[in-house]
């Protein structure tokens, strides 16, 4: 009798042990259905195109076992996408593609109640560098020429760009503050219009991404007069940075990366971190960075949280000084 009890004990403890073994195995998360990737722009917008490229590359490099499906939640800057992610609290098969707008939009828009700190950051993938460009036949050969002209004729020169809370305008504001020059920022909703107005001579300058500028320079339509980065860009070795030209202003980063809804289990975060660690080492990703002339901005964990915190502080300051209404 005693023996049988002993046996039973053995069997049960064995079951329990194997059970925990199973449990430990289940803890390594693996998606079981397509991943929903939320972006804040409509089809064709910057974030949409980036997300689709990543989804495609991941499939090609076989970094994830499931398909990644891009879901467009446009509206309210980034507010609709962000609150959609909050609704998906704890969902293990949803991720979001953030950009700098996800940090600045809640600062200036009262109706955008979700902050990036309400979500679960996973990785930052790229930093998009930018350059300051003028038309090819423009008299301004350096940033100094442009600033001097802007000082001589305040508010006569014009720069085309997007929303006033976007990077283009923030760059102008920090340069204006550092140099005392003043020029006008004219908003155009689409990138096409910004370039068309520069090439048509309706505005004098614009902030543009190096890849895009490269083609227009090759065709003899555009000239780049400053790199808006810490170091010179490999594609424009002869174009000095703002700092080299004596304008010491903070670099305003344009970051892109991935985050998850609030309250997702730790395993899911670990899973995504692992996926992207492998992904950023792949040849396809390296080639993509080079083609688009993006800067590798890989960052995760506490460093990423710190990046968001510092960015929010910096942006609040820049926006306030710019006279924008900061609501948070």
């Amino acid at each position: 009798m005693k023996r049988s009890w002993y046996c039973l004990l053995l069997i049960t403890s064995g079951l329990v042990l194997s059970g925990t073994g199973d449990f430990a195995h289940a803890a390594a998360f693996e998606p079981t259905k397509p991943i929903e990737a939320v972006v804040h722009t409509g089809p064709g917008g910057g974030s949409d195109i980036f997300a689709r490229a990543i989804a495609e590359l991941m499939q090609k490099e076989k970094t994830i076992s499931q398909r990644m499906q891009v879901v467009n939640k446009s509206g309210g800057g980034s507010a609709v996408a962000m609150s959609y992610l909050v609704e998906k609290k704890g969902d293990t098969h949803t991720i979001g593609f953030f950009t700098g707008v996800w940090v600045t939009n809640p600062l200036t828009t009262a109706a955008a109640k979700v902050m990036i700190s309400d979500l679960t950051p996973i990785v930052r993938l790229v930093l998009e560098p930018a350059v300051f460009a003028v038309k090819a036949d423009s008299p301004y050969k350096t940033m100094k020429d442009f600033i001097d002209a802007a000082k001589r004729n305040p508010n006569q020169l014009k720069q085309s760009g997007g929303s006033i809370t976007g990077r283009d305008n923030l760059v102008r504001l920090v340069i204006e503050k550092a140099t005392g020059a003043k020029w006008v920022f004219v908003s155009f909703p689409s990138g096409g219009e910004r370039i068309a107005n520069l090439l048509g001579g309706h505005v004098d300058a614009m902030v543009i991404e190096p890849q895009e500028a490269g083609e227009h320079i090759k065709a003899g339509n555009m000239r780049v007069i400053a790199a808006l980065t810490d170091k010179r860009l490999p594609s424009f070795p002869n174009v000095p940075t703002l700092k080299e030209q004596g304008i010491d202003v903070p670099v305003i980063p344009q970051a892109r990366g991935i985050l998850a809804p609030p309250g997702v289990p730790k395993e899911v975060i670990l899973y995504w971190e692992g996926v992207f660690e492998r992904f950023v080492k792949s040849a396809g990703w390296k080639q993509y960075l080079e083609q688009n002339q993006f800067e590798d901005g890989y960052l995760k964990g506490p460093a990423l949280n710190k990046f968001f915190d510092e960015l929010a502080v910096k942006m609040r300051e820049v926006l306030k000084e710019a006279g924008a209404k900061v609501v948070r």
Partner: protein
Amino acid sequence: MEALTNLLLGFSVALTPGNLFWCFVGVFLGTVVGILPGLGPAATIAMLLPLTFKMDHTAAIIMLAGIYYGSKYGGSTTSILLNVPGESASVVTCLDGYQMARQGRAGPALGISAIASFVAGTVGVIGLMLIAPPVARFALRFGPPEYFALMVLGLTMVVFLAGRSMIKGLLAMLVGLWLAGVGTDLFTAESRFTFGHMELLDGIDFVVVSIGIFAVAEVMVNMESRGGAELFRVPRGIRNLMPTLKDLKDCRFAFLNGSVIGFLIGVLPGAGSTIASFLSYGAEKAFSRYPEKFGTGVIEGVAAPEGANNSETGGALVPLLTLGIPGSNATAILLAALILWGIKPGPLLIQDHPALFWGLVSSMYVGNVMLLVLNLPLVPLFAQILRVPYFILYPGILGISVVGVYSVSNSLFDVWMLGLFGILGYAMRKLDFPAAPLVLGMVLGDGMERALRQSLMMSQGHLSVIVTRPLSATMICLALAILIMPLVNKVRSFRLKAVEQDV
């Protein structure tokens, strides 16, 4: 001569069996997407993008472009049959197209829209082929003041859309302008008329308003009068389902007008096909011998906007392929596709990738023929939809409207808005307010306000910038002429009456 050798190169690319197949796939998908309201070409191209990575790049761009111009063919179908505008550019087609359907002429309306699409689509491609670089350079002369003048010119089309009462037309237009103002102001990042609703921060989608005011209101008005089961007369026999020779003759000018206006507006990156279709409808009515009949089912009123809508595609590809500047959402995705494939779109594309460019241009000729062949036989088939009894047809229309609106941004909020605009549309019908001016105001309001404020920022607040630049001054003068014309006519008819009374 050079164009000819290039075209030969293009056809040698476009006519390979593989490329012909993908061209057909593209235009077929485009037609389907065009018929379904809500789901637009931009979303479709984005969805299919992953498929193209494994394809040959030329074949892929041929297919994606096929979706883009193919969707313009299908857009008119639901406008004519059900008063549900499939795309924003087919709102104008509802005006005369749906009236034609009510009179039992759905077949000719659908037929002429396919033919006009074919003619103008082909003209657009010819324009793209022959005059792309100079036209693109000309388009660069359009700065904010010119866009403002163009939008003002567009707004004067209200004169042709107002119907019986000009005051009611203007009021409807003002409501449209106000609706366009809802959302986040681009220049100050301030929210306007959003009443704390996050969903309104990006403004009200045009599709929601137009489907609400046209389709939902139509259903409501018709449900009120519980008439017989047979709704429309649909004549039997293929002869009555196709446009007659006289119809084609009547549309000569409409084909030309639609082609030219569509192409030129398409070239401008900030304008778009909706403006093109309104302008060509206005031009058609202005030069018509019987302008008073427009809005009652005149075949030119279908041919002109449908032509403009299709010719615009050729125009929109001009800045994309010659300057690397996308003019619309759909072309922005085409641009992104090129970049993802490792092709650098931009001013040098034609030089660096002649086979791709000319292959695409040639495939568009082929694609337009395919679309005509594909769409004309469907006409008698689609016309039969109107035989469906009302207790099936009306719930069907409502269903299509709701699904279409929901598919725009997968938002239930938009569906509630659809109901709201349906009620507004119903009230407007009851009070005899025309719907088209409201839509016109809404389409143009956003761009017009923006262009005006951009102009004023550039000129430091001096309005003179709009009249001192030759291009914008010309367009403003034209707009004034259009506004004054009806007044002159009124005075003249008043005088005639006075003379008659004297006698």
